[in-house]
């Protein structure tokens, strides 16, 4: 991009550079000004005092520890171990695990508020933290006390990082067709197969692996923990991704990988159910990460509209952009409500929780992606530059429409619920 088209004319590179530098200083994510606090789009709306305190702390952490680094982590593909451990010290490592073994003991709604707040600082890192939380919950909720006491404290402190291993190269949306096997051999399981798109793969210390111990279909799946360093566990090359660059994704291979039978989470044959229950929360978590990205993008677009002048007036005076901004805020608030509604459903074990989580993930991830994309459009040519974080929010939250069950699978789950005869 040597020149930037502007009202039919072109401006020179040096001028553009000077302008860019000025604007860059004004729209740094580090100098957050809480522009939308107390506005209709404020994420604190509708929360109780304690949730507001939690949210405030998470927003502070996001503004001071995540936002100043998100662009560097993205560009250099840094897995920010120390920052995440710092987050874990505050209780973000096992937010909705029981307090008995070191979890924070909060609700899914609290977790949603937290992940939304953290994602305003770095959507990608928050998404990984949320996956880790999902793994920790699966161990905490379905594991026996021996497994829980062994792993939950280390997961809560993020001394141990974890990865969720369900998808395989040949089993994506049709997860129940997975072909990784675990054969019992005395006091061990011998695992063979491979898992694809594993977030944290290669860096994580603990892999929560869904593998087949019995017949075909979901009833033959079990959930087994595999530690990094187990002979037979290996990792393929680091994938190159559009976003989510602050944590690696790799194929994880199991080649006669022997783990003790005590690493089984829950019972044999329960694995698919564990995986799906984990994902209900996981879907709320990624949707919440989308909310944070969209909120940050909206806030920055709003700020830019006040600074940027074209045709002799600032962008905030153009009705098209005013309306667009209003639509974005409306999309955001609607998304937030549907996500929090699903979180409450999960907390109260509502029989419709699966469909409500699916709806929330479908709606919020798509709307929030659109918000980030629209925010980028408001920034014009500058929005396309990596100097501005707005494109990163767009790239990071795009994948939320694909993973934790694609949004097509979400539609399937919702329609299945609707078409069931009751």
């Amino acid at each position: 991009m040597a020149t930037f088209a502007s009202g039919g004319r072109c401006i020179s590179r040096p001028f553009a550079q000077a302008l860019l530098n000025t604007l860059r200083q004004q729209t740094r994510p580090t100098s957050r000004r809480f522009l939308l606090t107390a506005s209709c789009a404020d994420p604190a709306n509708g929360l109780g005092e304690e949730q507001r305190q939690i949210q405030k702390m998470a927003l502070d952490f996001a503004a001071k520890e995540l936002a100043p680094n998100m662009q560097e982590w993205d560009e250099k593909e840094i897995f920010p171990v120390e920052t995440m451990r710092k987050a874990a010290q505050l209780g973000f490592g096992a937010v909705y695990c029981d307090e008995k073994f070191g979890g924070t003991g909060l609700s899914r709604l609290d977790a949603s508020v937290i992940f939304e707040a953290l994602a305003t600082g770095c959507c990608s890192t928050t998404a990984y933290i949320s996956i880790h939380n999902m793994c920790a919950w699966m161990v905490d909720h379905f594991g026996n006390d021996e497994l829980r006491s062994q792993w939950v404290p280390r997961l809560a402190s993020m001394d141990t990082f974890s990865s969720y291993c369900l998808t395989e190269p040949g089993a994506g949306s049709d997860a129940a067709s997975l072909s990784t096997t675990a054969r019992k051999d005395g006091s061990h399981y011998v695992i063979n197969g491979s898992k694809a798109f594993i977030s944290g793969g290669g860096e994580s210390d603990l892999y929560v692996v869904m593998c087949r111990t019995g017949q075909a279909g979901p009833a033959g799946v079990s959930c087994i923990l595999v530690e990094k360093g187990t002979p037979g566990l290996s990792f393929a090359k680091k994938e190159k991704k559009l976003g989510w660059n602050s944590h690696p994704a790799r194929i994880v291979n199991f080649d006669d990988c022997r783990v003790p039978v005590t690493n089984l989470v829950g019972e044999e044959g329960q694995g698919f159910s564990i995986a799906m229950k984990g994902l209900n929360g996981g879907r709320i978590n990624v949707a919440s990460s989308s909310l944070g990205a969209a909120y940050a993008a909206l806030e920055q677009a709003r700020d830019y509209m006040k600074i940027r002048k074209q045709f002799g007036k600032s962008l905030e005076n153009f009705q098209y952009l005013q309306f667009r901004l209003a639509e974005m805020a409306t999309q955001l608030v609607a998304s937030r409500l549907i996500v929090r509604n699903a979180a409450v459903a999960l907390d109260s074990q509502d029989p419709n929780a699966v469909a409500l989580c699916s709806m929330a993930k479908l709606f919020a991830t798509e709307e929030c992606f659109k918000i980030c994309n629209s925010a980028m459009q408001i920034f014009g040519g500058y929005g396309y530059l990596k100097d501005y974080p707005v494109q990163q929010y767009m790239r990071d939250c795009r994948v939320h429409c694909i993973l934790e069950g694609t949004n097509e699978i979400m539609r399937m789950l919702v329609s299945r619920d609707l078409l069931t005869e009751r």
Partner: protein
Amino acid sequence: MSGLRVLVGCKRVIDYAVKIRVKPDNTGVITEGVKHSMNPFDEIAVEEAVRMKEKKLASEIIAVSCGPTQCQETLRTAMAMGADKSIHVEVDAASYENLQPLHVAKILAKVAQDVKADIVFTGKQAIDDDCNQTGQMVAALLDWPQATFASKIEKANGDLTVTREIDGGLETIKVQLPAVLTADLRLNEPRYATLPNIMKAKKKKMEKKKPEDYGVDIGPRQSILKVEDPPVRQAGSKLDSVETLVSKLKDAGLVPS
């Protein structure tokens, strides 16, 4: 000298990151619908008190805030950071607009006597009115020694050795207890309250008081005449010669003519 009781003053102020807007009628600044948080210097004072407790130097930390109901949020934050209990001295929103450092100092002095504090700790100043008076006034009212602008606090037998940030350098003084301390920016870096501590803070005791309970009259001693935005910087102009520059400077009275 263990077992010190530390009273920490925590003011609720407009958050440092907020763009301050003056009210259209010039009576003050807009506070409604604006993000507020604990005065950053008070936060440093709370942090230092918590560290003193962790070092077994202090045994109890009591946070106190004077102002409207929302101050309770600030006190919860202080308790989530590690204060043991708190006192909210409720001042209604209208009276609060005219609450001055002397009023607050009188209240803090009374509270300090009431709770038998060994140390009254405040921020060096609040970032809203930048008065930098409350701590000093508390010391005067109680007739206690004061160590203001502290950037380092160490115990020395029965006393405290305090490094103060003064114009042109650092000054190290020794203060006898009881004393008033005020925190400067470089004293420490406040911690984030952890999630479990935020939950626990909810169960900590918060006493609710009124200025009358301490016999303090908060009637205003001064009134605010006008609050205005700083003048907007005027655009400069390019001049073609030194002569014009000099004559312009003379016209503006910036150089003797």
